[in-house]
Each structure stands twice: as C-alpha cells, then as structure tokens.
C-alpha cells in the first residue's frame, strides 16, 4: 500500500523520499516463522481511562510468554478515527487496530486496510454479540470483543419518593412516558425531572431502528422514526425531561443529571454501569440506590421477563492491518481469537467492561463488583437482550447517519416538524447517497 501512495505523490516529494530513505520501519526481528519472540502492536485509545487494551494485552502475554503486545496510544472520541486514518493512509498504523465506529468498517474494508480473518470468526462462539453482521460478502474482516447494549437506569429512591412503581420489565415506551410524567409531578422539585434524554441521535433513532418491525436504514423510508420522535417531543413539552435546547446549550451530562439525582431515570449504554459505580465511590455522584431494567419496548410482544427485549448497541471490533508483516499474521490472529473469546471476555468483565460474549462467568463477575445492583431485574436486563446494531454494516451507513443526525437536531430543537424533517431526509438520501 505504501508503494501506491508514493507513486501518486508529486515527483519532488518522491525524489526527496529517496534521499531521506524510508523511515519508521518495524523492529528488525523479521523471523520467518513465529517461533522465538514475536511483537505485535495494538492501537487503542486513552489508556489512562480506558484500561481494556492493557488488560487484554497483559492477559494474552501471560498465556503466551513469547509474545509481546505493544500498545500504541491514540486519542479517544472521534479523534481516534481521524488519527488512525492518517496512519493507515501513510502505512504507519499498528498491526492490530480497533474498528471503533461500526459505520466506518465497510470503508476500511473496501479501502483494503483490513485482512480477511474469516478463519478467526469461524472459531468464535456464534453467540458472540454482533459477530454475524460483520460478514461482508461472506468474509469477515473484524471481530467484536466488546458490546454495550442500551438499558434503562432508574433511581429507586426517587421512584419511592414519587410513589411510582419500579419498572418490572413490562414497559413499552408509552409506559415510560407515563411514568416520567408521574415522577416529575410526584417528586415535585423544580430542577428534578422524571426522565433525562441525552442529546445524541442514537437515543431516539437507535431504538426506533432496532425495535420497529421492518425498519431499515438503507430502505429510504424513515417514517418509522415518527412515533419515537413524537413521544420524546411530547415529553419535553410537558416538562418530564429537560428540552433538547437546554441539554445542548447547557451541555448537560447524563452522568451529572442521573448521578446527582436531577433525573429519576435515563436510557443509556451498559458502559455507564462502571462509570456510575466509580462515581458513587469517588463522591462525584450522590449515594443512592439504583437499578437496571430492560429498555422500554416498541409494543407488548417483547416485554416481560419471559421474552427477550430488543435494544441496540454497536459492537466494538478488532481487525488486523492488511499491511502487517507476514510473519506476524498467525500471532495476530491468535490474539484476536483470544480477545473475542471467553478468556478475553472474562478479563474484560473483571474491569467492569461488557464483552461481546456474555456468559454466566461474565455476569457473575460483573454483578460481583461492589456497588452494582443485586436485584433480579438488573441481572436479567444485563444478560438477556437482542441487541441490534445502531449502524448496520453497509456502504452508505455513514452518509445516511449524517443526514439523520441533521434530522435529529432539526426535530428535537423543534425547528422543523417531524413529518417535514423526515420527508426532507428521505429526499436527501435519494439525492446524495447512492
């Protein structure tokens, strides 16, 4: 890949390339066979607050003393993609990297940056969350090692104070809206609302896409979003949750809204379990009893603890750089099998991270952590769900999500009516994507 880029560059640049020689090669240990010590590099982000990469690396090194997993740090957030993209384009990216945003997966794959690792995928437990949709034309290029799902978090004490029954797993979104109104009234404090909806587009669209029968992102018809938006708008109009305008202009954080008891419930991804436990321990969040419940459902066909509730969440996946040294491929694949398999899952669960493969050991570990709620519904919510991707794998996902992001801000700020915004988005998809 390096060579291609150089030929497309200007002659002057290429000439000076020759002069300067090729910098930044890998370590000289180019063993033909992976006997002897092997080093593979792994891209991750923000190691100080994201220990998962180090955990996986150490756990793997313990099992394979011959292998060193060298971590290469990138920034968190969307900057990870920007910086990694630059490295991939220049041919300086690490051997193994995280495909952090599922919507970029196809671009990376089509751009030839990812190695075909269908053999690794075949070895994994089919129950691994989000594994199956990773196949592109029958081949898999990245495997999920982590998958967060969206859940309902609720403050038991505020529910009791308002005299509202705790969630029991039977809620549809209408029940949720009713409860939010009752809570707001029952609590009766000026700055405390029954619910909190964060500003991200996924908080509305992720559920609508996953739960509505027949909904799809690339079908060109977004009318499935309408009931979800109308419900959220009604909730903010009647004051059961802060308005989108306030959430965005005052940069409200869900951690402080829920953690300092300004909202009695919120829907959020399972990563918040670990954060909330940590913040309660450090004093950043108030001490109060809370619980988890399945996310509210589209209709009653999926509610109740004898059903499997439907929710959404993108898996975080790991792939191998197509430019990797031949001699290291076997080791890299072995590392991926480990990270996405039960051993990796167990290691991740111990630091409070939700692996893609949730088995009983993982659940026991997570619920054995100090501060995690112990009731049955919480455990049910954590372990039982059908999690559909927010960004289904497809070549146009990223472009469509940009358009739907504009729809989200237009509708939630009440700049445009739901129907107009949907019609507009459909027209834009027809016009711009394809």
């Amino acid at each position, binding site marked *: 890949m390096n060579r291609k880029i150089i030929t497309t*560059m200007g002659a002057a640049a290429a000439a000076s*390339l020759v002069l300067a020689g*090729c910098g930044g090669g890998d370590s000289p240990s180019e063993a033909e066979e992976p006997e002897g010590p092997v080093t593979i590099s792994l891209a991750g982000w923000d190691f*100080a607050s994201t220990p998962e990469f180090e955990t996986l690396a150490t756990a793997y090194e313990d099992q394979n003393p011959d292998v060193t997993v060298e971590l290469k740090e990138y920034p*968190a957030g969307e900057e990870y993609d920007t910086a990694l993209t*630059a490295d991939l384009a220049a041919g300086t990216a690490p051997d193994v990297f995280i495909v952090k945003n599922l919507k970029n997966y196809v671009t990376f794959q089509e751009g030839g940056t990812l190695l075909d690792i269908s053999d690794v995928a075949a070895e994994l437990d089919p129950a691994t969350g989000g594994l199956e949709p990773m196949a592109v034309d029958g081949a898999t290029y990245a495997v999920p090692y982590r998958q967060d799902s969206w859940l309902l978090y609720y403050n038991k004490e505020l529910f009791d104070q308002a005299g509202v029954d705790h969630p029991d797993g039977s809620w549809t979104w209408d029940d949720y809206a009713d409860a939010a109104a009752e809570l707001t009234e029952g609590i009766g404090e000026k700055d405390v609302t029954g619910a909190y909806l964060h500003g991200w587009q996924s908080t509305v669209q992720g559920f609508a896409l996953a739960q509505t029968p027949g909904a799809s992102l690339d079908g060109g018809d977004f009318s499935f979003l309408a009931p979800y938006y109308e419900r959220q708008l009604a909730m903010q109009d009647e004051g059961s949750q802060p308005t989108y305008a306030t959430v965005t202009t*005052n940069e409200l954080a869900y951690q402080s809204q829920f953690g300092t008891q300004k909202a009695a419930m919120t829907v959020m991804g399972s990563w918040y379990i670990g954060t909330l436990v940590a913040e309660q321990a450090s004093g*950043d969040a108030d001490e109060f009893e809370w619980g988890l419940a399945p996310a509210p459902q589209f209709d009653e066909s999926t509610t109740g603890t004898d059903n499997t509730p439907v929710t959404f969440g993108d898996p975080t996946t790991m792939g191998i750089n197509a430019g990797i040294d031949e001699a290291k491929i076997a080791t890299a694949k072995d590392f991926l099998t480990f990270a996405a398999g039960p051993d990796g899952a167990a290691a991740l669960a111990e630091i409070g991270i939700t692996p893609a493969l949730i088995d009983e050991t993982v659940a026991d570990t997570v619920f054995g952590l100090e501060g995690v709620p112990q009731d049955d519904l919480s455990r049910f919510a954590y372990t039982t769900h059908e999690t559909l991707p927010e960004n289904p794998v497809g070549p146009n996902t990223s472009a469509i999500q940009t358009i739907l992001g504009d729809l989200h801000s237009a509708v939630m700020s009440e700049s445009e009516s739901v129907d107009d915004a949907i019609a507009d988005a459909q027209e834009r998809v027809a016009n711009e994507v394809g």
Partner: protein
Amino acid sequence: MAARPTALRKTGRVLLYLAMIVAAAGILLPFVWMVISSLKTNNQVFTAPIEWIPDPFRWRNYVDIWIKGDMVTWVRNTMTVSVVVTLLQVVTGSFAAYGFAKTRFPGRDALFLLYIGTIAVPWASYMIPQFQMLSSWGLANTLYSIMLLQAFGAFGVFLMKQYYESIPDSLCEAARIDGLSEYGIWWRIMLPLSVPALASLTIITFVTTWNDYLGPLIYLRDRELWTIQLGLQRFVGDYNAEHALIMTGSVLSVLPIAIVFLLGQRYFVQGIATTGVKG
C-alpha cells in the same frame, strides 16, 4: 488635548471608561467562566441554570492537573514548538516580505498571489497528503513535524509585506545611495522600523501554535511528545469528560500568553521611527 478640560469632556471620559469596563467584563466572561469551572467538581460544571459560584471550591484541581496530567512535559513541548515556529516564521517571513515589497523580479506578484491562495485552502483538505509525505521522511511522531507544519506559513510573509509597503520607498532609495546593500537595508532599516508588525506577528504566531490542536492530533502519538492541547484532550473519554480539569488546564495554558502579551505591550504601539527620519 489637555487644552480645555471642561466638565463635559470629563464626563465624556468617565462614560467612556465606564463603557470600556462593561465591555471588558463582557468580553472576559468566557474566561471568567473557565476560571470558575476550574474550581468546581466535574458534575457541577454543566448545569441548568448556570451556577456562578462553585460550591464547594475545589482548589485541588490545580494540584490534580499536575498529578493526573503530565503538565510539565506538555508545557515543555508546547513551549519548544511555539518558540521555534515563531522564530522561523518571523525571520523567514520578514526576510521574504522584503523581497516581495521592495525588490522587483519577474513573477513576483503571481508568486505572492500563490502564497495568499494557499491560505484559502483549508488545512484539513490537504493534511493527509502532507502527512503521508512527512511520515515517509520519518518525521511523523516527532516535534519537528509540528515545527515544519507551522513555520513557513504564508501569513507571516503577507503581514510583513503589507507593513513594509507602508514604509516609504524613498527611505530604501536613500539608503541605497548611501551604499547599503539590500540585505543591509532589510537588517538596518526595515527590521528596526517594523517592530510593531514583528510584535504582532510574534504574538499571533505564538498563540496559534500554542493553541493548535489538529496538527498535534494527526502527528504526535507518544505521550512524551504531547502538547498542552493534546494532553488536555486526554481528559475527554469516550463517554465521560473531566471538564473541570480541562478548564483548569486551559486556565494554566492561557496564563503564559497573557503575561507575554502584557509584557510586550509597548512594542505594539511603538511609534516607528519615520518620525525621526527627517532632514
């Protein structure tokens, strides 16, 4: 101006000052908010409505930032890069500006338009080819890359050229007759005369480099190379951000610039010496 200090004039002055103080307070409001937020706990930073007084005051942030973040390294890197870039930009920029303003050569104006033209291209749109080039020279992930990126910008040339143009050509003419070479004119006449412009260019280049984020983001990976802006970004996680510490760091990062600016004040308004150049 001190001719007739009438009462009217005095009240005018007072009103002017009053207006300026109010305006200054308004202009400084975001900075004030930064300082206030730097004394809060993380979950207090963003609230509706705004809380203007931290409760409790959390002075510990100013200790934590040194422990949790590697401020010493970040400041050192940022300082190194900013000083080198500013030096290169000011020296090569003012040198080239003399060529554009006071000498004649074929294609001069076209070349100058080319300089300005590149300012009009957003960096993001060519940063990838540039990155491929620099990393093929082994310069990615070094501080040199950031220095090179910023040091030869067109802005410095543009600023200095325009300033030189407001210095009368007759001055150069006279110096030539006195036997000074063009380099001598640049060094002995133009540079001393352009102190206000050099001061502006210095502070602007320094601040721009100091606050640059996208450049270091693309080029720097190793922790020991991080700049302040890049370092502060590590307090922003995927789902959480330590806003209070970010604000603490931002306040600390603004202070050196404010001091430099205040100290450099007199150079911005140093009446240049054309006044002394009379016969």
